């Protein structure tokens, strides 16, 4: 029984106009509206985490106390880490862009479980409120990792934060279940597994990690809570327990979580590279298998966080080698993107500028990752700014650039308007250079021995800290410009039309913004996505009708 798409292809109302009023948004089951709501809350979280990042950089402008005391500094980096990791980066691309695009990209009307999707949004909001309330009223100073034994003995009230992150984890699991089921059961006829858009593959791989890793985090957080209320002893050596067990269990989740943060970004880049090079992916299969490979190997690398924590030499060696496998899969992707650009017809737009920034920064982030995966080198760099710089290259340099690429590439898809392109490119360049100015000095500082999470440092380090703070200010300024011109464009941007980029991605076959049920007629996808040799082969309209 075919869905009732019988109505002709007159341009009906878009999903934005299908229903009106705040209540219609709050009770919606439309994956596009849920994606937009996620995006709005995520941007707020990013603003909050960013403000605290700048506060940290201001404190580090001079040695000694600049604007805040040491306890305040510990609390500030906890807020920064908790908000950025748990409330922004982990949910960011899957919940906002995954929700909006995944059904469009496989030709479906919605996700498999629309009500569960809305529940996931409210769980996220509830968890975020609990977490933020907990962080601020409790003055939590544990950092985002809640390492035992400190998190179990600190006088600050950690419980609400543990519960809040637990609830956010529930939201993550529900979204993951929804996306996996959607990809398995709702692909339109013709969208075989080897024709699924690469962004969908990335979200699919991410969802598998989310579903398999997040329950472990949930239970670990509950055990820490139990440790606090009942002195459970499992992580407490004075009662015969082992604090290292916490680290193993925590990183069993939190290392794969790095791939929850970066795999969706890689999916965005795979789409944007094809669209702005006007070419099919250099090798679709290499991207797909490296995505699956990262999802799998990501589960086997957690021990590299514990090289100096008393792990066996054999264990450390094994984790070291397995961690390097991730770099091989990442390099396969990078070469495929470069191969796609090679002899393509490049269109240097704002999203493409971020793509270039992403590839460049991911390269350095990845290579420094191999460096810290070497156990002997890690003894020197462990817990220094070198590691801080390394993971910021991945989380900001890669994930955030991909987020911005996605925001610009799909902005016309979401709201039907264009942003000022020249300003977009200029700001992208500013942000990329601001990023490099912020974090390149941190590599140097770490190599000189600057430990992470310290509010104070010797005077000799000041020039590099000043450079880093200056870079962070540039970054903050760049984000401000993006917020201003995108906000302006929401109302005043010129109309984009259905497909302003001339992209052959499946999602551009419907209107921009799309109608409530995504397509006016059942879409037909005889050719793979981004098949620029046969433009227009994929079509929304069932001509036979």
């Amino acid at each position: 029984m075919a869905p009732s798409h019988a109505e002709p292809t007159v341009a009906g109302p878009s999903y934005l106009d299908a229903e009106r009023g705040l209540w219609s948004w709050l009770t919606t089951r439309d994956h596009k509206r849920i994606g937009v709501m996620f995006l709005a809350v995520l941007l707020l979280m990013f603003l909050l985490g960013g403000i605290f990042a700048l506060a940290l950089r201001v404190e580090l402008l001079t040695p000694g106390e600049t604007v805040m005391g040491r306890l305040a500094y510990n609390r500030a980096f906890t807020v920064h880490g908790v908000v950025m990791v748990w409330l922004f980066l982990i949910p960011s691309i899957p919940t906002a862009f995954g929700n909006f695009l995944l059904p469009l990209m496989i030709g479906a009307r919605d996700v498999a479980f629309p009500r569960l999707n809305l529940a996931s949004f409210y769980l996220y909001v509830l968890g975020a409120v609990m977490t933020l309330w907990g962080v601020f009223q409790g003055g939590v100073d544990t950092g985002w990792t809640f390492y035992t034994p400190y998190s179990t003995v600190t006088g600050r009230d950690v419980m609400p934060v543990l519960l809040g992150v637990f609830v956010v984890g529930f939201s993550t699991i529900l979204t993951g279940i929804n996306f996996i089921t959607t990809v398995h059961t709702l692909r339109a006829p013709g969208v075989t597994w080897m024709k699924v858009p690469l962004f969908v593959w990335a979200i699919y791989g991410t969802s598998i990690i989310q579903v398999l890793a997040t329950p472990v985090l949930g239970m670990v957080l509950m055990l820490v809570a139990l440790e606090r209320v009942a002195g459970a002893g499992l992580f407490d050596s004075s009662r015969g327990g082992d604090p290292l067990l916490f680290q193993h269990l925590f990183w069993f989740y939190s290392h794969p979580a790095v791939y929850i943060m970066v795999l969706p970004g890689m999916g965005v880049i795979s789409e944007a590279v094809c669209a702005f090079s006007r070419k099919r992916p250099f090798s679709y299969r290499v991207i797909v298998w490296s995505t699956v490979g990262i999802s799998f190997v990501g589960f086997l690398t957690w021990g590299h966080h514990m090289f100096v924590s008393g792990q066996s030499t054999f264990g450390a060696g094994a984790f070291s080698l397995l961690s390097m496998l991730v770099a091989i899969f990442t390099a396969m992707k990078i070469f495929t993107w470069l191969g796609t650009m090679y002899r393509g017809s490049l269109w240097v737009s704002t999203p493409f500028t971020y793509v270039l920034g992403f590839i460049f920064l991911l390269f350095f982030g990845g290579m420094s990752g191999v460096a810290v995966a070497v156990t002997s080198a890690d003894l020197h760099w462990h817990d220094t700014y070198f590691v801080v710089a390394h993971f910021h290259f991945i989380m900001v340099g890669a994930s955030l650039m991909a987020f911005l690429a996605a925001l610009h590439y799909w902005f016309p898809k979401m709201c039907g308007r264009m942003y000022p392109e020249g300003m977009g490119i200029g700001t992208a360049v500013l942000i990329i250079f601001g990023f490099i100015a912020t974090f390149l000095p941190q590599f140097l500082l770490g190599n000189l021995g600057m430990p992470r999470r310290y509010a104070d440092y010797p005077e000799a380090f000041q020039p590099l800290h000043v450079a880093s703070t200056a870079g962070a200010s540039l970054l903050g300024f760049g984000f401000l410009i993006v917020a201003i011109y995108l906000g302006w464009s929401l109302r005043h941007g010129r109309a984009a039309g259905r497909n302003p980029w001339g992209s052959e991605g499946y999602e551009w076959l419907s209107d921009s913004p799309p109608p409530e049920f995504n397509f006016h007629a059942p879409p037909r996808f005889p050719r793979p996505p981004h098949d620029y040799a046969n433009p227009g082969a994929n079509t929304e309209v069932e001509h036979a009708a």
Partner: protein
Amino acid sequence: MRHEASPRPVEPRALHFGDEASRQDAAHLGMWIFLATEVLLFSVLFTAYALYRLTYPGVFQQAPAHMDVFLGTLNTFVLVVSSILVALAVDAIRNGRDFAAAALLALSVLLGIAFLFIKAAEYTKHVHDGALPGAWYAYEAFALPGANLYFTLYWVMTGVHAVHVLVGVGVLVTLALRTLAGEFGARFHTPVELGGMYWHLVDVVWLFLWPLLYLT
């Protein structure tokens, strides 16, 4: 049979499924993935158990002597029988015998509640002994180093499991009432199947807890 004639109203958003069969496939797949997350949830506790069993082998070998093996085994029997009843209920509803299905579900609910009462009796005995988790551990008959960790694990593992039994009982009660109200029949009974899957998982987890905590 009377329910087969009443097609369920389907909201327009759900029309993306070609037919009812693919809707049910999706629901089953979603449930299987959810069960996988449950397994990973318990895997943390099994990992901790393995670590401390290796660290304190003597404690973990002597511990079953301080457990009520009879009540633990009785509970195993209770859960396995209730699981069989749920399986029979699913079979009954597939064949259109809704009343039989509701009765079988109700029986398995009673067994689930019996499990919780037996568990509570055991807990009471442990509290009386002072075999409490964590900082409150004060069981003098079993005061070896590491014994406190055994009982912490015992309380957490059986406690998390008991919460799942409680949720499962709630699910089965709802399913039994909805079956009685005529919502499910031979044509549509996906929620009964999904609830049954959840109940079987609760059973399977106990089948691992029982030997680890009572027998070895």
